[in-house]
């Protein structure tokens, strides 16, 4: 299915993930893929000793699952060969390894050939927590967004991860899907399924636009918007789950009302969501863009996912203070 056809396709049915229960996006992906494997002989899951699939899941997948061992370049090359033979490989690795160690194979073997490989990248952003900078991925969105033809998706909760697995069967070319590690909060009940390529409006307001990707940044924006609303400041909250192709129109429309956009992401502040928003608005409809993300450093403290988010200021309070400062209702904002 082409991107233009997708834009007019009706939303698909919500996938059977309990929206009230926190769940990891990576296990939601795994479970949805396992359900789909018997329905589509094109599908095959290639693993790299990630442990995401336990013995029961490996047995259930049967011939449609292969663990190729700890060799991510080899993984991407084999996936490309299979995809060029008519299959649709879902490859499991960590975001850090997909976006850097295996990047040349992703670029040349997969993206250059526009092959339908689905790169399912766990431990995105700071999700690796105490495992440290070797396992954290704070550049993956910038890297993948730079590759022609690559679709870049960041589900904001488990249900969205499962929905993207469904939709991926119809998307053209390669996909990079950034997943997490541990359970993360679900979006509010009633949130409709995401449509790849179209930013999702979770709340509307005239004073500022809060644009985020990934579970915790989106939750931070929703919480900040609720807090600001009490003070009479109304924010639009956009879940920008697709970084490529980028929904410039949605950003332009939302920014048109307020002229202020705050981006929030688990990513170094260059090249990710903040970069995409700044690029799009600078060309289409200049607005003030303030980017909240990981400061220009490797993590230098031990802590779990949420601890690191708090430590580096990817929080509801930081989002709210940034809006207040930009609107002259508080100290001037800093994003470093």
């Amino acid at each position, binding site marked *: 299915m082409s991107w233009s056809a997708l834009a007019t396709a009706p939303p698909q049915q919500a996938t059977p993930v309990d929206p009230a229960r926190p769940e990891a996006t990576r296990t939601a992906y795994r479970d949805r893929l396992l359900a789909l494997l018997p329905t589509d002989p094109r599908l*095959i899951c290639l693993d790299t000793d990630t442990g995401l699939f336990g013995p029961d899941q490996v047995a259930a997948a049967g*011939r449609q699952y*292969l663990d*190729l*061992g700890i*060799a991510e*370049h*080899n993984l*991407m*090359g*084999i*996936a*490309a*060969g*299979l*995809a*060029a*033979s*008519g*299959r649709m490989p879902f490859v499991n690795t960590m975001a850090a390894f997909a976006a850097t160690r295996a990047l*040349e*194979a992703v670029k*040349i*073997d997969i993206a*250059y*050939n526009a092959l339908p490989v689905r790169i399912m990248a766990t431990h995105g952003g700071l999700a690796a927590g105490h495992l440290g900078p070797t396992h954290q991925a704070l550049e993956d969105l910038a890297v993948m967004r730079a590759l022609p033809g690559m679709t870049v998706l960041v589900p904001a909760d488990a249900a969205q991860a499962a929905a993207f697995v469904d939709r991926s069967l119809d998307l053209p070319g390669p996909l990079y899907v950034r997943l997490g590690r541990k359970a993360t909060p679900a979006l509010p009940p009633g949130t409709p399924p995401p449509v790849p390529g179209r930013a999702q409006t979770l709340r509307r307001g005239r004073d500022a636009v809060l644009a985020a990707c990934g579970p915790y940044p989106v939750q931070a924006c929703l919480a900040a918007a609720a807090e600001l609303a009490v003070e009479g400041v109304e924010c639009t909250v956009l879940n920008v789950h697709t970084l490529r192709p980028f929904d410039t129109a949605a950003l332009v429309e939302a920014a048109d009302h307020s002229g202020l956009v705050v981006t929030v992401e688990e990513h170094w502040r260059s090249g990710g969501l903040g970069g995409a928003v700044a690029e799009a608005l600078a060309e289409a409809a200049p607005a003030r863009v303030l980017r909240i993300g990981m400061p220009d450093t490797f993590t230098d403290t031990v802590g779990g996912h949420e601890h690191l988010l708090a430590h580096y200021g990817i929080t509801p309070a930081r989002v709210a203070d940034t809006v207040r400062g930009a609107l002259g209702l508080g100290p001037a904002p800093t994003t470093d």
Partner: protein
Amino acid sequence: MTAPTAVLPCSAEELAATARRVREHVVDMCAGPEGGHLGGAFSSTEILTALYFAVLNTDPADPADPDRDRFVLSKGHAAVGLYAVLAERGYLPTAELADYGRPGTRLMGHPVRAVPGVEMPTGSLGHGLALACGFALGQRLDGRSARSFVLMGDGELQEGSVWESAIAAASLRLDNLVAVIDRNGLQLTGPTDGKAPMEQLAERWRSFGWAVRETDGHDPAALVGHLGSAPWEPGRPSLLICRTVKGRGVPFLEGRPAAHYVTLSARNHARARAALRADSGTAARAATVTAGTVVAGRPA
């Protein structure tokens, strides 16, 4: 070890004659505006010719046949040789070879899929073996009897990704995979063994779980015999190490690192053409001697 079973569809003399025409095309391309990777194309000329004319089950009239054998030129810089072989085999007009390296054409310095017969674009070294593993795995999953072939350079073996895939191919028991190493002993700036010694190369690959043979990489009959009869051991991928000479066929370039990339002047173009004409007589006589023993084909 499985014995070859089928008769060569074209004679060793014909293969030698084809290889000579391929070298003439390459010399002509390397006299064009950009020059080309002549040395590695000439060390692999007989390998590519044997593959496309006597081993691979492929049809230029039906290049997308799902039952076809697959070939990946992992040493993508030998593109001029591949283009010449594909043209001789009928995938593109031989007249188009004059386009090589010229603006607006499709004959790029490294293979691109826009050229009929090219399965995968290559150029950065250390990619082809994984791609061929993917093709071989796909053929097996589909229940097809087809095979996948890949040609690597010996300098390329310095790339770590090669060894990732060497492990994977044996682990997956891909006996429909055949890898070939063009062991010309030279890389861009000097002898390969001077950069990274590869002693006991065959033993290294055997220790990874491969079935390994070695041969003269300029002997069409031997090449067809070995490549045609793979797999040599059930459950193991096959590796043919081909002893070759960089720049083979043009004496003033043979065995010289400078042959890696050349832009031939008009004078040297004429010298190279003359050398190939003189060499063809020698090659034809040698081929006649072995023609009666040449066999190839798939195991029964």
